[in-house]
């Protein structure tokens, strides 16, 4: 399903006329993110960014192409979210904020 969304995003990206910014750059960035996730190189941050990009491109694009371009991503995320999540890179413990004794006591 990630590849299906990637395929549609590639189409929208190549069909974009290039007039408005969210569609011209947003579809390209979403395609790059979907490629990353599909190749199992993406992280949870990439998925969060993808979702935010979907909203921005959908709401701010000038014409129908940009406004509907994120739809395949949004529907696959709604029904097949696990397929995205199982392709994400595992969290790297080295970059996680360290839990100190003081923080443990607070929580």
């Amino acid at each position: 399903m990630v590849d299906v969304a990637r395929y549609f995003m590639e189409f929208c990206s190549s069909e974009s006329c290039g007039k408005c910014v969210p569609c011209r750059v947003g579809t390209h960035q979403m395609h790059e993110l979907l490629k990353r996730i599909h190749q199992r190189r993406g992280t949870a941050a990439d998925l969060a960014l993808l979702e935010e990009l979907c909203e921005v491109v959908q709401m701010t694009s000038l014409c129908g192409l940009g406004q509907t371009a994120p739809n395949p991503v949004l529907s696959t995320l709604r029904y097949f979210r696990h397929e995205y999540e199982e392709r994400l890179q595992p969290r790297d413990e080295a970059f996680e904020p360290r839990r100190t004794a003081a923080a443990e006591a607070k929580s």
Partner: protein
Amino acid sequence: MMRSAAPANVRVVTLKINGQAIGAREDETILQVAREHKIRIPSLCYLEGLSVWGACRLCVVEVTGSPRLLSACSTRVAEGMEVQTDTPRLQRYRRMIVELLFAERNHVCAICVSNGHCELQDLAQQCGVDHVRMPYRNSIYQLDSSHDLFRLDHNRCVLCTRCVRVCDEIEGAHTWDVMGRGIQCQVITDLNRPWGESRTCTECGKCVQVCPTGALVKQGTSVGEMHKNRQFLPYLSRMRQAL
């Protein structure tokens, strides 16, 4: 603000912008009215004196009753309209659009001729962009230095098409145009010939003055040295109307 030769029978409407009741002429846009009342709406492609393009999408506003966001530069005011220009949602969208602009081409302020006098830089500050969350595309773009007086650097172009519009509408030469589509779009001179070989360019320099970034600059300028005259076009159009 610029006023076109006003027909006598233009109606006055009342609307609310951010809860503030405002009276405005029917033929004005939301952006014009907001700026007259010192309400800041970020914009990039809009420039007073040129035709409306509506493509940067930074001036989007919420209008009560409209399911979609509307661009303030291309929407006329109407009686009883209620406009919100600065909600948290709009701030978030604008921030991301500016980030997209930075990630599209190679905008590196530290080595840019327009550093400190750049509208894209101002927008980033205004919208609170302190870092870009998506990777830069890092595509290699060409630099056209074939013209004796001016230089074109595609790496710093944001495709606002101000140069295209000023050349066509104000100078009347139409040297500039946009080539390609999607992410491959580029501004070109004549039929994609080097600027220096262009037969239509009148060397007036209007495109350089209206360019918001360091894409169009004067030859011989170095880092941070390119100052553009922001009052150039409003002054010119006012003078032309006075004649």
